[in-house]
């Protein structure tokens, strides 16, 4: 085990589910290190938001980018040095509002990077505004009478854009989150994991998710795009988690 802790003081709220994501990422890295991945060759990028501070809490190469730009930054790093393993961390506001064009195009070009989205359906760091994944009617500080927009389904967008690894997980299920995170990083091509999480300060969805989050069926085929498009949209009593889609396609960086 490599100690990946840093001297930086953690400033997340006590009990924040980001701690679980941080813990999962460090565990996954150590699993990958034990099977040959060189720590020197790992880079994480992050956007701006509560999630972004994660870069300070992992003792590896990191690039805290601008709000919404962590995927573009990651693409540039990977193209410059394809030997590096590049993981981009983002928030739902960050990735799905400010910088969604970069996700669409990273998926389209199949850049060999991983995107992990801390999706808590709210802006936390700016103290509680609506994001693209907030439910209709959400009352935040910028929508005191309830948001009027339908939420975006990011995984549907990314499947349509050509992402070759599309998954959803729940921060409350540490073991499953780790398994999916590891597979995403190991995937050759653009991989995205939408990590559902409660924000205990501004949108406490612990009970909501506990009741609804479920696993995909055991024999679910991961190579059927049409099926994946249907499955990622199902959002009623059950919210399916797992790998919806995984295929191999030529990688952007290999064409140079």
């Amino acid at each position, binding site marked *: 085990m490599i100690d990946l802790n*840093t*001297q*930086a003081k953690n400033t997340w709220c006590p009990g924040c589910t980001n701690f679980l994501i941080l813990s999962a990422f460090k565990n996954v890295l150590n699993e990958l290190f034990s099977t040959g991945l060189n720590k*020197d*060759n*790992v*880079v994480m*990028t992050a956007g*701006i938001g509560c999630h972004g*501070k994660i*870069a*300070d809490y992992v*003792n*590896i*190469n*990191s*690039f*805290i*980018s*601008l709000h919404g*730009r962590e995927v*573009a*930054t*990651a*693409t*540039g*790093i*990977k*193209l*410059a*040095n394809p*030997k*590096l393993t590049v993981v981009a961390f983002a928030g739902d506001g960050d990735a799905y509002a400010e910088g969604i*064009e*970069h996700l*669409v*195009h990273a998926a389209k070009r199949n850049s060999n990077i991983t995107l992990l989205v801390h999706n808590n359906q709210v802006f936390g760091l700016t103290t509680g505004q609506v994001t693209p994944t907030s439910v209709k009617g959400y009352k935040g500080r910028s929508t005191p009478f309830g948001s009027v927009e339908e939420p975006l389904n990011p995984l549907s967008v990314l499947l349509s854009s050509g992402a070759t690894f599309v998954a959803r997980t729940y921060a409350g299920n540490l073991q499953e989150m780790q398994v999916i995170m590891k597979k995403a990083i190991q995937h050759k091509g653009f991989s995205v994991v939408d990590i559902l999480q409660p924000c205990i300060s501004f949108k406490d969805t612990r009970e909501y998710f506990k009741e609804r989050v479920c696993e995909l069926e055991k024999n679910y085929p991961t190579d059927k795009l049409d099926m994946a498009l249907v499955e990622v949209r199902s959002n009623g009593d059950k919210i399916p988690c797992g790998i919806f889609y995984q295929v191999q396609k030529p990688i952007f960086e290999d064409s*140079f």
Partner: protein
Amino acid sequence: MKKQNIFSVLVGGAAGDGAREAAANLSRLLTNVGFEVIQTVEYPSLIRGGHNFARVTFSDDKIHSDYEALDILVALNKETVDLHFKELKKDGLVIFDCEKQDKKIINLPLCAYAKEMGAPPILRTAAALGAICWILNLDLEELNKIFKTVFKDKAEANIKLSVKGYENFKNRKITQIKLPKPKKIIRKLVDGNEAFAEGLIKAGLENYFAYPMTPSSSILHFLAGKAHEYKIKVAQPENEIAVINMALGSAYAGKRTATASTGGGFALMLEAMAMAGMEELPIVVADSQRAGTSTGVATRTGQGDLAFVRNLPGEFPQIVLAPGDQEEAYLLGGLSLNLAWQFQTPVVVLLDKLLSENMSACQLDDKKIKIISSKPSKAGKKYQRYEFTDDGISPLAFPGDKDAVVKVCSYEHDEKGYITDSSEITKAMCEKRFAKIKGIVKELAKHEMIKVYGDTKSKNTLVFFGSTKGAILEALKYIKKPVRAVQILCLEPLDTAQLKKILKESNRIIDIENNYTGQLANLIREKTGIEVCKKILRYDSFPFEPLSLADTINKILK
């Protein structure tokens, strides 16, 4: 005044007629036989139709600008005759595909020749070039060499057509123009964008990201074409925001990286350029200015971005360079990449449509550009990306370097790169970044960043930056009173002491710019407290023309 042996040929037609390419081939021919050549292009922002033209001015002596007065007008359509006939010199002539010869208009059956050959109409310009070879008494073989280089295995039809044109004029004994003997100096015909890109390559460019926007696009086209030859990775991402953020990722990963756009695209990059200042990432960003504000006049020239590009958000040492011609674009292209890496900071290079797309026969001296790298690190486990040093420059390591953890951060950060809001560190880091200025100034002093032309002792001073250089240096030939012209190549950091010294010796300072507000004059006042006496400003989307500029200056100095 010495008699000027200056000749001009204009090739005009509808977009898609190949006027620009034909003129470029004539320019290449004239360059190869040893003339000084300047070629300018004018075209509207559309693909077919509209009026396009390229003007080739050449001489046995150094010229800095093209001239409107024409010796030969090649008209590929009637509109070109109508628009440009008035620009002909007294004994100038027109080559035009019409029924019969009429005074100045010499008929040449361009379309019929192309048809006879079974060649597409666009090739008819080759017959016109053949006819020009007769008029200028140039060796047709030299033209055919150009065709072979440019068109490779498709050159044959062009060669046959050029012979047709040449023979036609020869048989009709069309009056020839006697040219002076060229100096036979070996030069290369390049436009400003190509020269800038060549400078970047010479300084070790590894990655280039850009989104198309006239007039910066031809840098992207040129580098994309050279990608394999020079092992440069060239990519066109989804927008300028992606461009600059990818470019900064690339620089972080250790690759010498550049990008370019024009005002609008440059504006999209601002947030990330400030991040480059904060994170101390080396990057070169060129802004090839177009005329007007916003989308403006897409295919015309202007200098409206000076105030904008030297005022990026936040505070960090900024470097802004502005070459005035192709040779300077080459040298400053190289210098910009070196400065970015030496000082780990973004460098802006200001170009404009005129400089970017004008071609000139020049000598790009590759001995003048050497690759200068950043301060390397051997710290390993103890590595701190933002380690405090006397010169403000922290040793640079990259992801993948053994044991080094390289953390960069757009927030204010401590030496290790962790987010901080400590007031002590915030102050110290700000001072660290600005401590680099001393080194930057010292490095810039090795290069001539303020140039003085003309009568260097004169108390009449013209000040300018960028591509107005051509028209101004050319105008000097026609200004009656003694005058000197002062060019500023580095606008940030400005060598205030030297500039003050020069300007204080002046009685009359005349500022010349391609914009409305006189942004250079404002910069000079801001940095030196000196007001210029007079501003000559042009903001109609066209560059200055040397003769009328000289006229204006003569009236002021009277």
